[in-house]
């Protein structure tokens, strides 16, 4: 906090009012409704609602489809984080290495960040279409790829579609992280350790830890929420619900199935997951890494 501050009885609230107002009406009010939905059930004819305690939650735990979506979401976030993180890091290290053309490389690798996930999905669709999709035919020749029927193949489809643009974000943040490391540290390490590969893993990478953990959270959030547009324009859950993320399933149950109670309960479960990940990050990871 600042040592010198303004003291006033009302003007601070004038500055806070616009954002607080929007948050209260368009964020807190819906969240309260989410809780109301989650603990109530509409009767079959839509005449009224009834308070049902945790019934909606019990229903989703009884639903095998929920666990399929849960499993897929976990696998999907893990694989996307791993792939985009390592490719992004590899490219950032190379871009940081070169003497010439650093900013050109930056420009040529940054732009996919700006493309909407739904647009990426529509594009991926063309490369995985049975009729003229290049990747479809390439993989089909290799091992009989068929994402309409094989769960594994549909995973590959949505993982490629989901990873492609996210490499950019990882690249940008890793490059910024690398550039923030002081030259003197690197120069000192060059004297102590001649092997550049070992130098990277013992000196540079530990110094990148804050960036890495930030990106893990960014990538998990991306895989959880932003991939909706990708799933909805690629597999739509094919073969039979195995490639639905939790967000996608909640949306389908609420929109197609008109089951707002279940959608609300699923939303609250997801809020809990996000909360756990955040607390985990603050408690266990933030405390253990060094910021230089």
């Amino acid at each position, binding site marked *: 906090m*600042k*040592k*010198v*501050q*303004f*003291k*006033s009885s009302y003007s*601070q609230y004038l*500055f*806070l009012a*616009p*954002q*607080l107002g929007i*948050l209260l009406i*368009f*964020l807190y*009010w819906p*969240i*309260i*409704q*989410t809780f109301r*939905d989650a603990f109530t059930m509409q009767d079959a004819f839509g005449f009224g609602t009834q308070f049902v305690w945790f019934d909606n939650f019990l229903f989703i735990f009884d639903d095998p489809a929920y666990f399929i979506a849960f499993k897929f979401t976990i696998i999907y976030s893990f694989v996307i984080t791993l792939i985009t993180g390592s490719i992004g890091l590899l*490219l950032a290290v*190379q*871009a940081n*290495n*070169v003497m010439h053309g650093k900013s050109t*490389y*930056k*420009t*040529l*690798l*940054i732009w996919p960040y*700006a*493309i*909407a*996930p739904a647009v990426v999905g529509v*594009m991926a669709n*063309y*490369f995985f279409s049975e*009729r*003229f999709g290049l990747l479809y035919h390439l993989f089909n020749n290799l091992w009989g790829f068929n994402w309409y029927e094989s769960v594994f193949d549909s995973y590959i489809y949505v993982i490629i579609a989901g990873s*492609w643009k996210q*490499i950019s974000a990882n690249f940008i943040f890793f490059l*910024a992280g690398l*550039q923030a490391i002081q030259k003197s540290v690197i120069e000192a390490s060059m004297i102590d350790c001649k092997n550049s590969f070992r130098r990277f893993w013992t000196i540079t990478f530990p110094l990148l830890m804050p960036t890495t953990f930030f990106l893990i959270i960014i990538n998990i959030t991306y895989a959880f*929420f932003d991939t*909706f*547009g990708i799933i*909805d324009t690629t597999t739509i859950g094919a073969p039979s619900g195995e490639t639905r993320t939790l*967000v996608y399933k909640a*949306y389908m149950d*609420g929109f197609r199935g008109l089951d707002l109670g279940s*959608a*609300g309960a699923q*939303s609250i479960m997801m*809020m809990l997951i*996000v*909360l756990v990940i*955040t607390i985990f990050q603050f408690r266990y990871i933030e405390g253990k890494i060094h910021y230089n």
Partner: protein
Amino acid sequence: MTRFITSSFSHLILLIGILIMVIPVWMIFASSTHTSSMINMNGLQMFLGDSFYENYLRVLLYKGGFFKEITALKMFFNSFIMATGVAILSVITSLMAAYALVYYRIKYATLLFWIIFITILVPLELRIFPTYSVMAELNLVNSYFGLIVPISASAIATLFFRQFYKTIPDELLESAKLDGANTWRFFVDFLIPLSKTMIVAMLIFMFVFGYNQYLWPLLVTTSEQYWTVVMGLKMMSGSIVHRFAFVMMSMVPPILIIIVLQKHFIKGVFQDK
């Protein structure tokens, strides 16, 4: 010599990375300049054809059978309004809120801080139906207001501005006070000019964020007059080359903004020199 080898290796890896990014987009673009029968017979194309103007003009201007009630041009207009609205609204409200949080002694400051920042954990996707019913109750379905405001209910920019204000030395306010600046003057004449880079970066970030929205416009616009580009991709019908052309055009605005304003964006987000 080793220096030369390692740097050639770096260039090679970077080149492969760039090709992975560029080739898919290039192929869709090249294919979008051919005729549908060509694509249906020979698949995606690597080289340009000669139907560029024909395909793109048709997608932009044709309405009726193709888009039923709306042209792609109108969708671009809608997307532009939505993205600009989201950028301006969220940046202004965040600037102000961060100002109050940093430069005022507020009662229950910690509570207010959490009320604002916990919202980052609850993205729109988690409260999509209740948000829709709030919009329906307020009669805001099918309006620009309805497209813009719920997306702007985000505290991410507030977090960035707050961090930035905290790095500004206390002496600035002291000297401003000596000069007789009141709170509003200090905010407008000192703080906003100082935050320019940050403001531009957040405007770009929120513009792209708003432009790329898919699920929310899908839900909140039942009238085609309010369709945006990104959601229109799923809705549109038409022959394959027209779809390609539409996909290509849909990615141009955000990519252009990121490339042109790249320096400001990176400078603001990473606060580097």
